[in-house]
């Protein structure tokens, strides 16, 4: 017998038993079926419990079956994979169900009339009316807040990354971290105390100030991270050409990271768009259209949603309006996120030939 023939008879050490490709799906299907069985048998009411049981069964089932067939190392690999999948589903299910619920309930009254009319002459419990005044208020308040917070935040981040040394920079970083943790109601109360001291009535810009306080640390943090990603070599290359430091920052560092900086600002805008508490305290809410953010109470989308729910004493028409306004708000935030992604892609440093 030749050596080759002997080698042929030996089992390959590189090839082990493998579960077929469809096995994860089969295990998932099996666990769901078993979970439903257990749920029915034990009389569990909550579908959430069913889902959790299915998830646990899937993770353990995968491990046991893979350990039997493939060995322990592959089983560990599979358990990691299945844990990631279960975690993904746990995160996605609430999101999808939230969007589904909002769309389903929101589309009932969401039309052009709804988007272009205010609540001016409509009583809270009656059908009709719209959110034009709230959209206007949100856009103005958030826009003004962004005009304040974005430049201050970006400049602070530039200081921290490019110039900041020693105690001043350390304390600024510390206070930015503290600011990140400020509850929105506290920011609202802070501006409210100023407003009361100056004996002013609620107006839109007061809300913008509170929103700007909330937005600033988010912008600082994200911009800081983006600026840190710019390779030092680019700064040195520019400095070595005899370019002053401020021009290096303006013409090389910021343009290289502008995509990321805009994304960060957009995400911060999306975050403050949904804030209710400071708006409730400072802008007060208004059924009529008030286009002037510097005088008189204004409406805003999150505040409108809250007030439709709270002031209507369970009227279905008001609930429908609240859902439709929620849908508009979610759509607006989603749009901002998409725009942010678009800008990031458009402004990303080009590598193509």
């Amino acid at each position: 017998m030749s050596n080759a023939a002997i080698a042929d008879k030996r089992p390959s050490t590189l090839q082990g038993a493998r579960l077929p490709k469809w096995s994860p799906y089969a295990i998932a299907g099996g666990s769901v079926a078993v979970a439903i069985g257990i749920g029915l048998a034990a009389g569990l009411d909550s579908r959430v419990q069913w889902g959790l049981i299915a998830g646990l069964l899937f993770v353990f089932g995968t491990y046991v079956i893979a350990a039997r067939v493939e060995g322990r190392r592959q089983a560990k690999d599979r358990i990691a994979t299945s844990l990631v999948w279960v975690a993904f589903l746990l995160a996605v299910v609430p999101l999808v169900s939230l969007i589904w619920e909002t769309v389903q309930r929101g589309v009932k009254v969401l039309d052009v009339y709804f988007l272009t009319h205010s609540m001016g002459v409509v009583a809270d419990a009656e059908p009709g009316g719209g959110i034009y005044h709230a959209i206007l208020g949100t856009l103005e308040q958030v826009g003004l807040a962004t005009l304040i917070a974005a430049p201050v935040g970006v400049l602070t981040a530039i200081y921290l990354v490019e110039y900041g040394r020693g105690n001043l920079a350390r304390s600024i970083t510390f206070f930015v971290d503290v600011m990140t943790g400020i509850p929105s109601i506290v920011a609202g109360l802070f501006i409210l105390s100023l407003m009361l001291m100056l004996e002013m009535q609620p107006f839109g810009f007061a809300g913008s100030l509170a929103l700007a306080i909330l937005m600033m640390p988010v912008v600082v943090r994200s911009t800081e991270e983006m600026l840190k990603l710019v390779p030092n070599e680019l700064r040195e290359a520019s400095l070595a050409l005899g370019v002053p430091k401020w021009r290096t920052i303006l013409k090389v560092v910021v343009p290289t990271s502008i995509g990321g900086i805009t994304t960060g600002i957009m995400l911060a805008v999306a975050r403050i768009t949904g804030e209710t508490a400071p708006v409730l305290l400072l802008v007060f809410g208004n059924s009529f259209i008030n286009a002037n953010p510097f005088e008189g109470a204004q409406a805003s989308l999150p505040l409108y949603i809250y007030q439709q729910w709270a002031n209507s004493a369970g009227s279905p028409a008001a609930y429908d309006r609240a859902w439709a306004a929620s849908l508009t708000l979610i759509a607006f935030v989603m749009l901002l996120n998409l725009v942010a992604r678009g800008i990031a892609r458009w402004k990303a440093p080009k590598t193509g030939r």
Partner: protein
Amino acid sequence: MAKRIDVSGLTAYYGSHKAIEDISMTVEPRSVTAFIGPSGCGKSTFLRTLNRMHEVTSGGRVEGKVLLDDEDLYGPGIDPVSVRREVGMVFQRPNPFPTMSIFDNVAAGLRLNGNYKKSELQDIVEKSLKGANLWNEVKDRLNKPGSGLSGGQQQRLCIARAIAVEPNVLLMDEPCSALDPISTLAIEDLIGELKERFTIVIVTHNMQQAARVSDRTAFFNLAAVGQPGKLIEIDDTERIFSNPSVQATEDYISGRFG
């Protein structure tokens, strides 16, 4: 154009760590001077002190004198930005500006420093790219991003960018260590051409390269890890590689240590 550099008693620190100690040498104008020596001996640090890039690193600090044709770069009232316009630099890894086109990369130094007319800029960019032997390869795609070029082309783009501002001295920190032999050859040929116009100082780990391109060679060494690097000797390249006056140089060149 080209200027002489006179260094005397130069010591550089990173924070409290002394990186190089008491270095004195003269770099002749219109010549190529190569720095060789083991890793960590302070060649690059010394190179960066010659255009005040050392102090860009946090904690970087320098004592001693660097005369550029009788003017002390570390004298009172000297603006490091103006120093860097006189003494250009090419780095180890090619680093074109990723947001700029090839044209803008070469024009960057001029554009960021002052006002030039479009036609002036075009002339200078063409001249610099020709000077860096890159013109024929990129003349049809000056508006494409510089990061789309190959590594060797990017490095020549960086050289074009450095010579576009017409410095007196060109410092090169291991300009070929990230490149293949063909690109290396292209850059070495370029160095030979550039020395007609500039004073060139090059750091290299490649001893054949030092022997090929330089007129004078300086050998740096350090006594032990953590000790400051020192200049062991500087002499004509031919002498350094055939008959150095210090034993350590001969040991290093013949590969007995380091």
